[in-house]
């Protein structure tokens, strides 16, 4: 009975998404929110099970690999599942207030969101390369649809860019799957892991390269980041939060999983290979941060910050020989996920309240919307890597792993990246703290905003900070099933 937990995490969102679609445009929140609560409960139980009795394997249809499809839940995947559900529930409550009744952009939010979450959960649980392709497409198309939903031409352009990028990425991945199948006759990760060695035929190296590039495009690693800022910056706030916090993590997770799992034989034999993603990650940190510091629109600022923060995730690749690096990566994924969701949600409140999207128009926000500014600040603290926050722990783990392996360049990149992050975070805070005389002619007016929106943003921001005080359980969970 316990083993069903994982499968229900995939089935439940599919079920409520379909029912939401059947119920009609704009409906489904009342179904989705309790279901997401249930999913959160399931994933917590799953985490308990996995930490007690180790990784779980499931053979869908009872066939088992290589003929059937295997699902697997180990520490790494359960951690990602946990992150997904933890963010999804507050986000859903936020979205419910955000998309007021009959708001055109929210008409298909619930079904699309359900499919997206099912895709994510499916991706984290899958242990089959081809099945992973299907989940990747599910996630990608749902994300594009959410960006474009009833948007203006700016959103459509962003969505199209995103669509072609994501299709290019999954196309490369698919070709890689074909090559792997050609070489070994199976797509099961567990079956492949022992047979892929450093002496693998050249085709397998090509496949690895294709997967690397494809997933880097999907994760928007510099220089493939071009599609991310307009897409994440242009969508409505709940969607931006969903995309920035969760969707880009999925392809990162997959890359990590492949790197440590089936392709471990290759990656271990080519020690310098890890420096490719790491170098790009460093460039992403610098470039993304600088663009964020320059950005005029607040959501663009946050989106560029995502480009930068994703860079940290890739810094771990040269260090993966030690387990500390994996822990740093997961901690960063959590820190960024929670904080970025909170930040986009806070930005949504600010935009709703001021009716504007410019950083300059935020003067006085700290007076008018103290909760929201506080949430933004707290999330900013995490992104900057200041204590106490999950971001700080991630930074600590990463620098320690880097110093332990003599990779000083990575330590320096992390520190400088933190300072740059402070640059764009405090740019917003500074503007928000500016006092504006109430009588001034150009004083911005603030519309009332539902309190739920403010509190949900604060909840996630607080979670990102509090995780910085207790990361033991999460790290123990990750340690359970890092290297497959």
């Amino acid at each position, binding site marked *: 009975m316990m083993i069903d937990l994982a499968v229900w995490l995939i089935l439940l969102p599919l*079920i409520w998404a379909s029912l939401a*679609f059947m119920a009609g445009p704009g409906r489904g929140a009342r179904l989705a929110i309790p279901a997401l609560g249930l999913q959160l409960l399931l994933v917590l139980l799953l985490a308990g099970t996995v930490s007690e009795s180790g990784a779980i394997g499931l053979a869908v249809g009872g066939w088992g690999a290589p003929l059937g499809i295997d699902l697997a839940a180990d520490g790494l995947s359960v951690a990602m599942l946990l992150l997904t559900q933890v963010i999804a529930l507050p986000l859903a409550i936020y979205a419910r207030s955000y998309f007021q009744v009959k708001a055109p952009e929210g008409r*298909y939010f619930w079904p*699309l969101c359900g*499919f997206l979450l099912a895709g994510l959960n499916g991706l984290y649980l899958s242990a089959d390369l081809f099945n992973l392709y299907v989940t990747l497409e*599910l996630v990608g198309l749902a994300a594009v649809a959410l960006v474009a939903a009833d948007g203006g031409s700016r959103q459509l352009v962003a969505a199209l860019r995103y669509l072609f990028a994501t299709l290019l990425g999954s196309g490369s991945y698919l070709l890689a799957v074909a090559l792997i199948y050609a070489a070994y*006759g*199976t797509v099961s990760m567990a079956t492949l892991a022992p047979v892929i060695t450093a002496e693998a035929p050249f085709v397998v190296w*090509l496949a690895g390269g294709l997967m690397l590039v494809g997933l880097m495009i999907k994760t928007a690693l510099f220089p493939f980041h071009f599609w991310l800022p307009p897409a994440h910056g242009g969508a409505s706030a709940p969607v931006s939060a969903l995309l920035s916090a969760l969707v880009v993590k999925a392809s990162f997770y997959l890359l990590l999983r492949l790197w440590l799992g089936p392709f471990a034989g290759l990656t271990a034999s080519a020690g310098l290979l890890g420096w490719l993603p790491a170098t790009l990650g460093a460039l992403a940190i610098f470039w993304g941060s600088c663009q964020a510091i320059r950005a005029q629109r607040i959501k663009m600022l946050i989106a560029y910050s995502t480009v930068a923060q994703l860079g940290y995730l890739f810094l771990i690749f040269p260090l993966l020989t030690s387990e500390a690096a994996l822990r740093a990566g997961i901690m960063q994924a959590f820190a960024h996920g929670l904080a970025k969701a909170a930040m986009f949600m806070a930005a949504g409140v600010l935009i709703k309240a001021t009716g504007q999207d410019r950083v300059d128009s935020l003067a006085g926000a700290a007076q008018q919307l103290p909760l929201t500014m506080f949430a933004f600040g707290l999330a900013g603290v995490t992104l900057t890597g200041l204590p106490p926050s999950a971001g700080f722990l991630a930074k600590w783990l990463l620098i320690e792993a880097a110093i332990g392996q003599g990779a000083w360049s990575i330590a320096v990149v992390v520190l400088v990246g933190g300072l740059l992050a402070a640059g764009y975070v405090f740019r917003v805070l500074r503007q928000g703290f500016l006092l504006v005389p109430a009588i001034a002619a150009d004083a911005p007016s603030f519309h009332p905003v539902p309190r739920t929106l403010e509190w949900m943003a604060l909840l996630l921001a607080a979670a990102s900070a509090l995780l910085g005080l207790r990361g033991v359980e999460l790290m123990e969970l990750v340690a359970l099933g890092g290297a497959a």
Partner: protein
Amino acid sequence: MKRLVVIPAALFFVLVLILALVDLAPPAFDLRPLVAENLASSGVAHPVTAVLLNYRAYDTLLEIGVLLLALMAILAVSGSPRTTSNTSLSASDPLLAMLGRIAAPVMVVVAVYLLWAGTSRPGGAFQAGAVLAALAVLLHLTGLLAGWQQPGVRLRWGLAGGFLLFLSVGALLLLVEGELLRYPPAHAGVLILLIESGLTLSLGLILAGLFLFLSHDQGGPR
């Protein structure tokens, strides 16, 4: 500028890839014997259908999800319902219309045949659904079927019903048999046929919908 990078890189890549493909040794695993061995307990006689709806039925489930998702995406993108572009049925050629009327029952029969045939030879829900969709497109082109606006309740149930049926069977088997989509061999055939029938209808509607929801929009640039 971009060309100068992309084209040489593409040529180089394709060359390397083909060379690598040509001298690739035979694979370590072969699934064909496995497929054949288990065919008896799979509930169908056609190996491709066995893979699609039994061995790797979970892939298929998600794939229908992708298709349904694409449909929802189209609905979400196309924007709020507009009152204006009320698609007029073009007064088409009477000959064409007649052709459509004759073709319709024939194609329905073909679809049913394909569905049934799928258990033992090429064919199945996809192909049958595609034929139904083609019928809808044909009727639209001959002016017998208008482009669709926002779907009503019944259409929504039709669109999502096949997927939900598939999902429920999977979930039910998870509860009864302890594993997602694990058919008891005795009932595998019936269950697969049930799923396929549902899918044929929904796939037909979805594929038709991809065309008809899009083509309702005939207005010029706003």
